[in-house]
């Protein structure tokens, strides 16, 4: 465990130097929130209206949280890096190291994400309080619950993207798959809660990654409920375990294929 902590720490340190880039990234975040603020203010004719069980303020808080989770992730970079590692054969270099590539990728990327998520969270909360003049009713305990769920969401997201990146063992360019994944999360999972979709497809969405990487934590934030919390955490943990298993499986299959071809 100690070596993974070290990987985490060193990535975090290198990233402190990119503070400026992060600051500029803030501008993009503010603009997204600004657009959605305007959009929902237009859709809700008066602030007391409730649509599909959400008040206007809840809707905007929902987007603030899902956007924090997505913008801090830097998924495209991660996917590109893994694709390059596979294609350049760097990944085989990693085989000789006393750590596993999947965990290596997970912890090194968590290091990159942590600082960003921390800073964007502060920004997002400030924006919400300034524009909405209201904060969801949360106790200290439920805040911890939301944080746990967010951490799990980010971890699952990274593992899922790692899986997508590792597909490049088998096809030439896995980036288009990432494209599709990001569209799924962005269009379907970031803007609207699951309740906004037609009844017929809601059960399907409950089993899709959207539920665990964006809907779950954001829903807990705007409307905390102990029963729901337990349910979401359990599903997230199951998702994480399965995703890790798949990642390892693809990795080993891929490496074996590489060895056969490369030998």
């Amino acid at each position, binding site marked *: 465990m100690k070596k993974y902590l070290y990987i985490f720490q060193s990535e975090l340190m290198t990233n*402190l*130097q990119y*503070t*400026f880039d992060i600051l500029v990234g803030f501008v993009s975040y503010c603009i997204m929130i600004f657009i959605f603020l305007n959009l929902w203010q237009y859709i809700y004719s008066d602030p007391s209206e409730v649509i599909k069980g959400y008040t206007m303020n809840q809707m905007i808080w929902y987007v603030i949280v899902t956007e924090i989770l997505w913008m801090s992730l830097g998924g495209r970079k991660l996917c590109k890096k893994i694709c390059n590692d596979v294609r350049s054969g760097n990944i085989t270099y990693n085989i000789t190291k006393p750590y596993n590539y999947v965990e290596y990728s997970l912890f090194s990327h968590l290091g990159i994400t942590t600082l960003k998520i921390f800073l964007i969270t502060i920004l997002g909360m400030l924006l919400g309080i300034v524009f909405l003049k209201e904060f969801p009713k949360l106790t200290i305990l439920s805040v911890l619950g939301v944080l746990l769920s967010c951490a799990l969401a980010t971890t699952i997201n990274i593992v899922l993207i790692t899986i997508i990146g590792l597909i490049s063992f088998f096809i030439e360019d896995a980036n288009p798959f990432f494209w599709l994944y990001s569209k799924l999360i962005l269009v379907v999972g970031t803007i609207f809660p699951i309740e906004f979709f037609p009844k017929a497809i809601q059960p399907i969405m409950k089993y899709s990654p959207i539920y665990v990487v964006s809907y779950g934590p954001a829903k807990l934030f705007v409307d905390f409920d102990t029963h729901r919390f337990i349910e979401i955490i359990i599903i997230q943990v199951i998702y994480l375990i399965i995703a890790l298993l798949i990642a390892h499986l693809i990795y080993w299959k891929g490496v074996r294929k590489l060895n056969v071809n490369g030998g």
Partner: protein
Amino acid sequence: MAVITVENLSKNFKVKVKEKGLKGSFKSFVKPKYNIIKAVKNISFEVEKGEMIAFIGPNGAGKSTSIKMMTGILFPDSGKIDVLGYDPTKNRRKLAYEIGCVFGQKEQLWTHLTPYDNFKFFGAIYDIPGKQVEKKIEELRELFELEEFMNTPVRNLSLGQRIRCEIVASLIHEPKVLFLDEPTIGLDPVVKEKIRTLIKRMNKEYKTTVVLTSHDVSDIEKLCKRVIIVNKGQIVLDDTMENLKYHYLNKKIIDAKMKEKVNLDSVEGINILKDKDYNLKLEVDLKKKSISDAIKLLNPDNMIDINISNVPLEQIISEIYKDGDK
């Protein structure tokens, strides 16, 4: 008649200095510190029509910066430049029709196209009518011996073949002056020699004025009649190749590895620089002794390895400085 006149030319670069670590990044973000690098300091010279002139000097001496100012790429901080009657800072585009440039480290060709298609493209850039381009390509193809690979995409050519194509591409519009910035960088000696011969032939054929830079003395020895040595942004020496050879390039260094230890004493014209274990290093003054004299001193049967080289450029420069002090 002078085709290029440069007077009191200077150029500085401002480089941001960053201290180490996070604190340094922050500091340089809030209050940036700059270092001024004087790349070219107050240089003046003239180049005559049809001349082949070389700028030599170590990396970072200011050769490329000078060429880039003469071609209009960089704006000088002060001083005057006149190339073929144009001021590069004001008439860059008019000047561009009259000059050709090759930068050894930068490609201007489309790599997925054949040399032929590339040359046609350059013809279009210089507004040359189709038939005239064809004729010119034909002519240059012979001069630079491009037959074998005229229809091979550039990305499949060797570095030496590519450089030949780069040079031809820059000659399509019959420039009066050709600037070559490190044309032989990264090439092996045989290919280098080939390029030199071709440049020489081109100069003879078209009477094109050639200005070239290099950090390799042997490049210039064979090509140019006149040499300008630049160091730290200043002209150290502006002289004919003959004089330079007589004064500074008349020495060769011999490195030899022997089977047994030989005891040699310095004689007139042969100086022993190092004699340690089985390794010998001699400096031969060609005015007084020939290379063969020096080798005769060593027993060839006793020799494992031998290497004969020119005096390094840095040493020549420091010798020139020493002479200046006298």
